């Protein structure tokens, strides 16, 4: 492993949510939202995380920042074990790790102006005096391409793309090293989406940022990422550098997922792998390989033994019994 360059190291991360039932609200089961996931993020890179709805992408992102307490596992950031930090120490640590959310409307306080929203993290972390903060906020507005004369406007007075810029400016305010962006362009129209993607790339270069970029759109993830991890039902099934993953996917799920994406080219002839059935529920995931109920290559062993997530050369990680042979 490239231990020396990695900024973030996630090992055996689990997040189980209790399912409560009955009159006494006793625990009657659990949702294995994230079920033993390991990966690292190198300094200055963008790690993309893709997968279908409910596979645990957001929970993984939130557990890294401890917005969701991990059930078990380790999250090491620049050598600090985040899961062991006390509340106050974690709060201070959040200066280094920020999050950008999918729904720019829901994540911005409707009663605060753009100025107040962006200034807030600076206040929380006690950065600068009022006048210095003002200067910084104005600079941030410019950096993300917003009109400084609009600083006094409220979120509803901005368009979706502009609101996402406010969310990005807020995350940038404390000069973090790592930004976890959870579906930052999913709610945006195509023509606005490319504006925000370009902005994220520019900011990465300017401020030497590292991104964990979560999305379900495989084309967007290919565009922005250096390495990509694919999740299915709480597990990471494949992780590799971008081009190997997209050009030579090894896991049957990744292969099906990529083949299912409609491409905007009427002449493209691609073989489509149509998976039958629905994604099983994470409260009762299939035994063995979680994908075995839909996998076109399923073997006996897949139904019994969970395949190990292993490096099959050049840091191309896969969890599948087909490759073990």
């Amino acid at each position: 492993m490239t231990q020396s360059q990695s900024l973030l190291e996630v090992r055996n991360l689990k997040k189980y949510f209790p399912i409560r039932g009955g009159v006494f609200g006793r625990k009657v089961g659990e949702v294995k939202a994230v079920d033993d996931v390991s990966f690292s993020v190198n300094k200055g890179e963008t790690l993309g995380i893709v997968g279908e709805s409910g596979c645990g992408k957001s929970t993984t992102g939130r557990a890294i920042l401890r917005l969701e307490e991990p059930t078990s596992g380790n999250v090491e950031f620049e050598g600090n074990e985040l899961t062991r930090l006390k509340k106050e120490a974690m709060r201070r640590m959040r200066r280094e790790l920020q999050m950008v959310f999918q729904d720019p409307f829901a994540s911005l306080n409707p009663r605060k102006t753009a100025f107040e929203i962006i200034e807030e993290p600076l206040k929380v972390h006690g950065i600068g005096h009022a006048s210095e903060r003002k200067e910084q906020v104005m600079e941030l507005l410019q950096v993300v391409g917003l009109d400084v004369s609009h600083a006094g406007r409220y979120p509803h007075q901005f368009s979706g793309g502009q609101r996402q810029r406010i969310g990005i400016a807020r995350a940038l305010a404390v000069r973090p090293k790592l930004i976890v962006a959870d579906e930052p362009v999913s709610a945006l129209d195509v023509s606005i989406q490319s504006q925000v993607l370009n902005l994220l790339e520019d900011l990465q270069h300017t401020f030497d940022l590292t991104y964990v970029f979560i999305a379900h759109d495989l084309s967007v993830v290919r565009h922005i990422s250096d390495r990509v991890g694919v999740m299915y039902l709480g597990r990471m099934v494949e992780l590799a550098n971008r081009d190997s993953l997209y050009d030579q996917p090894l896991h049957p799920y990744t292969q099906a997922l990529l083949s299912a994406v409609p491409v905007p080219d009427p002449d493209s002839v691609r073989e489509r792998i149509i998976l039958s059935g629905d994604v099983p529920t994470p409260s009762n995931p299939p035994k063995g390989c979680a994908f075995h109920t839909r996998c076109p290559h399923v073997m006996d062993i897949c139904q019994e033994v969970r395949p190990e997530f292993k490096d099959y050369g050049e840091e191309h990680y896969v969890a599948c019994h087909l490759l073990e042979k």
Partner: protein
Amino acid sequence: MAEPLLDISEFRMYFHTEKGVVKAVDGVDLTVHEGEVVGLVGESGCGKSVTSLSVMGLVPQPPGKVEGGSIRLTGKDLTHLRQREWQRIRGNDISMIFQEPMTSLNPVFTIGDQIVEALQKHQKISKKEAKKRAGEALKEVGISRKGILGEYPHQLSGGMRQRVMIAMAMVCRPKLLIADEPTTALDVTIQAQILDLMRRLNEETGTAILMITHDLGVVAEMCDRVVVMYAGEVVEKADVKTLFQDPRHPYTQGLLKSIPQLDKRFDRLYSIPGNVPDPRKMPEGCRFSPRCEFAKDICMTQKPDLLDLGKSHFSRCWLHDEKKGDADRDPITVTT
């Protein structure tokens, strides 16, 4: 060519609200022929849903008001039909499926009851016969599990609900199926199942489809022809190959260049500057002019017509007009 199945011509639907007039659909020309799959694309708020709801007679009036044009189904104008006449057309001649199937399935009735009701509304058949047909309809969309007729919508996954919707929409063998973002709420592997199903139904039953989507990938895979809308107007239409290989309207060109593609690499994405206009304050002249890199003086003041470029390719842009526009600057170069 034969008379089109659906012929929308110069159609306008405005909303009169307290804050002003929203010209949601402001001059839409669109035809669908028998057995054809036509895509209607454009960004959020450009008027795709209002167009399709108008075809179904489902736009509340007021606040909506038809301000001109016509919608013809096999020659008959639908814009002034009475409610009773609509009942005969909806479900029978035209059916519609929506993005979120939960909004159109009734949560308190079983799947079976809902399909039986849809059938009996239009056809004089016994309950027993209707039930049998309901079961067959569900099998056609790939749901064959036992007891499905007795299940309630909330017991099904999103993909299955959409299948049920399609079964219900297809049960009376409509001539036209309007699908408004039928897969937008679904995961990509489930989307592939649903698109596959729709394509098969189109081929096997000959039902024409008006496919509304903002996903140009879906358009490329499903459609024979494409209509592109921007801010309430049709800006370009062409057969699917022409649209992707030789887009002529600057908006269509920009849109195609802005999407990241799975199998093509760009270091930097193109982006159309600015934002979609506020529907209450539409720009003068060409509605795309404030964002268009080719805009000239005339674009800001006069509205261009939808010009015939030959071979059923139309585009609403001054650059194509040799007299008024400046034909040399026709942005024909395709960059994707």
